[in-house]
């Protein structure tokens, strides 16, 4: 077996096998010359061995970790807001969203005391689903930014 790397072998290799060949080519002038003679663009494969500066890598980690937030902090709030809206409206409770006019809800019964829930409007568009089950009218309001 030749101690030198056949450029066609390098051309066909991938993954770790390719890396081993590249490390040899990087250190072997004869193999670099052979690769250049075969196809000089093959020499750019040696860039795989160049490490990225540690300062750049650390900066990426720090910036990313500073900007992420726990997903559990926001998602359940949305679910709570939407669920509360459903329960409240199904029970005949009205929700007042400034700038938002829901479909009028038929009062279910005078026996159900009315109550008001204050909801701070979010920046996102509200989606409304309105349907009736038996004698109960259900209005679902979904707003990703809803804060109860």
């Amino acid at each position, binding site marked *: 077996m030749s101690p030198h790397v056949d450029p066609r072998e390098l051309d066909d290799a991938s993954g770790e096998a390719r890396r081993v060949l590249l490390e040899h080519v990087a250190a072997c002038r004869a193999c670099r010359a052979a690769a250049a003679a075969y196809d000089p663009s093959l020499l750019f*494969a040696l860039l*795989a061995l160049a490490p990225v*500066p540690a300062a750049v890598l650390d900066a990426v980690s720090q910036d990313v970790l500073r900007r992420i937030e726990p997903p*559990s902090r926001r998602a359940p709030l949305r679910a709570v807001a939407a669920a509360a809206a459903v329960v409240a409206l199904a029970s005949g409770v009205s929700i007042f969203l400034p700038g938002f006019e829901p479909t009028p809800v038929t009062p279910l019964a005078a026996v159900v005391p009315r109550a008001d829930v204050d909801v701070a409007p979010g920046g996102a568009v509200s989606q409304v689903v309105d349907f009736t089950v038996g004698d109960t009218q259900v209005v679902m309001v979904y707003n990703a930014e809803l804060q109860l």
Partner: protein
Amino acid sequence: MRDDLDLNELIRSAARGDQRAFEDLVVLKRERVVRTAFQIVGDMEDARDVAQGVFLRLWRVLQRFDLERRFDTWLYRITVNAAIDFIRDRGPKGFLQPLPEDAGDRLASAQPGPDVVVDRERLQKTFLRLAAALAPKQRAVFVLKEIEGLDTDEVARVLDISESTVRNHLHQARRILREAIRREHPEWS
């Protein structure tokens, strides 16, 4: 070195919102992401921005990742798409801008041996300058296949194109680079 089981556990934990696990995942994959982005966008500061965007997106969508699939392929896809979007936003008609002569200086050179270090710095500068002539997809294929060392079928999965299209892009990219090297650096070959 982590095996696939470790990686899957890390992904599962990070997807559940475990920030420590996500930090480990970032450390494990950041060099690959930055290097790929750098070779496509051609500037280390821009590559850093692209990499940050990639990992922030990863944090948001990780829970959708199917553990039956190969994570690296998925991550390469997010990275390459982000890098191509970046250069399309930056350059006219989707092509890269020529880079300054010293653009490659910010990629560190590696061991071993001073002559290799010198060669590699020159090699990096030359690649960044000549690759500016490639279309973004051609450049992405060249970087994934030749520098990242992916198989043709994995490059096809990353870019969501056929293997024959990968081979065609690679053929064109290598022809353009080969002709440029022979024109500008006849001493190489």
